[in-house]
């Protein structure tokens, strides 16, 4: 019934090489937690996490496990359960490089790659310490005569291409099109990534493109390099529209991860 070859989770994990820029979806976009744990088991190193625009437990676990050398994000947090303890510890002790950013800049940098332009302009941000510390950002005076204010300073952000993106989704159709609903930031992430892998709860024996409305809910298979069926693949994070986050579990993590030892214990239990 499927027109694509299903991958095992291991095959996806094996696509992630040390030093890769890995795309990280926000907690509302389908966090691939099962994949993340396998990645940690494999012991991948020096990942550069590019968060659109933030990460929660996924980023904190990867950092705590020593898989990360650099992270670009607008926030790393456990949301209602407080700060991301392994992230904070790693930054405070200089173990990882954090490229502090702001949500719209993270979107715009991927949109630049989506359009294959060298940069994307953004308003705001100027005068912040975020801007001051980003040597890869550049301010020009607006050169346009017909738009904006002549000579107003405009921030230019570089195009960023991801080496690999992995996210979790409710389902694919038989042709490998992925249901993303209105989580359209996943399309931007995919467009800006060299390779894209998706874990799904299930594969439906239908073709999303047979109906204009269901077509509107999907990321086309042409951007997807491989799919693996992984039940409860986002747990304990939510899969929007399918299941909620397991708040008990996240709270448990947030308490355990306050110390290195607690984190170690937790990871032993969870891997």
């Amino acid at each position, binding site marked *: 019934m499927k027109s694509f070859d299903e991958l095992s989770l291991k095959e996806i994990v094996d696509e992630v090489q040390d030093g890769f820029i890995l795309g990280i979806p926000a907690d509302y976009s389908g966090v691939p937690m099962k994949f993340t744990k396998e990645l940690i088991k494999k012991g991948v190193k020096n990942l550069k996490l590019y968060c659109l625009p933030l990460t929660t437990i996924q980023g904190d676990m990867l950092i705590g496990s020593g898989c990360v050398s650099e992270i670009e994000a607008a926030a790393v947090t456990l949301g209602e359960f407080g700060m991301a303890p392994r992230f904070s510890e790693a*930054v405070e002790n200089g173990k990882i490089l954090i490229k502090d950013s702001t949500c719209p800049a993270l979107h715009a940098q991927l949109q630049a790659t989506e359009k294959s332009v060298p940069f994307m302009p953004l308003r*705001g941000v100027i005068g912040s310490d975020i801007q001051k510390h980003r040597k890869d950002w550049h301010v020009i005076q607006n050169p346009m005569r017909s738009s904006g204010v002549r000579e107003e300073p405009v921030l230019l952000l570089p195009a960023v291409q991801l080496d690999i993106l992995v996210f979790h989704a409710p389902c694919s159709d038989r042709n490998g099109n992925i249901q993303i609903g209105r989580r359209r930031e996943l399309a931007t992430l995919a467009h800006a990534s060299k390779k894209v892998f998706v874990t799904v709860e299930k594969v439906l024996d239908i073709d999303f493109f047979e109906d204009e409305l269901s077509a509107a809910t999907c990321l086309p298979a042409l951007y997807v390099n491989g799919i693996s069926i992984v039940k409860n693949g986002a747990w304990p994070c939510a899969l929007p529209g399918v299941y909620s986050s397991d708040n008990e579990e996240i709270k448990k993590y947030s308490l355990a991860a306050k110390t290195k030892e607690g984190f170690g214990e937790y990871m032993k239990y969870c891997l």
Partner: protein
Amino acid sequence: MNLNIQREELLISQLADLLKNDKHVAVGAASPIPGAAALLAKEEAKFLNKRLRVTILHSNKYNNFTDGARELFDCAAQGRIDTFFLGGVQIDGQANINLVGTGKYPKIKKRFPGSFGSALMYFVVPQIVLFREEHSPRTLVKKVDFISAPGVSEKDVYRPGGPKYLLTNRALFRFNKNLQKFSLYKINEKETVKNLIKLTGFDFDVDNKISQMPNPDTNRINILRNKIAPMVSEFYPEFANRIWGI
């Protein structure tokens, strides 16, 4: 009837008062009190036959967007959002906010989550309400350690938006853009100006219309507890449980 108003309910009520002229209020990450305030204001607007649109990002139900996570920022930049809320690990007298951490960046001492979308939203939303419950010399500082988003900008910078209010659990300030300074506007009934001066790390003016924070009336409290609380529990279950036991 003893209303027994909780601290959080008072804050929700204060914030709701600031939204009366709005058409579209948006609420970002980890903001249960602003979220509840926006829904309360929306409910009350109905009685005046007005329509207030509320977008709460962390809710599926109250998220009006369909263009992905960037739409909040695009929508705000287009001038389609009247009020947004921002917090801060530190906030200083020029309304600079710090969401990143304390100490000398990048050698940070205590690291917090990060700047979120503040560095754009602060520039483009006409009414930014700063909200930080803790009112102390530790949170309201002379000069923030890191500027996630500046309170004021050079003249040539595109900036239709900016800070209008700062609410803590002790006081409400207005921000005067020309003087680049906060002005004390309303204070908690248990509070004195003198004590607030002691508890605030930055200099501020005292508004000549200064008054006490009004307690929400029975009507408002009823709406809040009976109608708004269950809505809030959809997207902030921990908070709703703690405040209203639901």
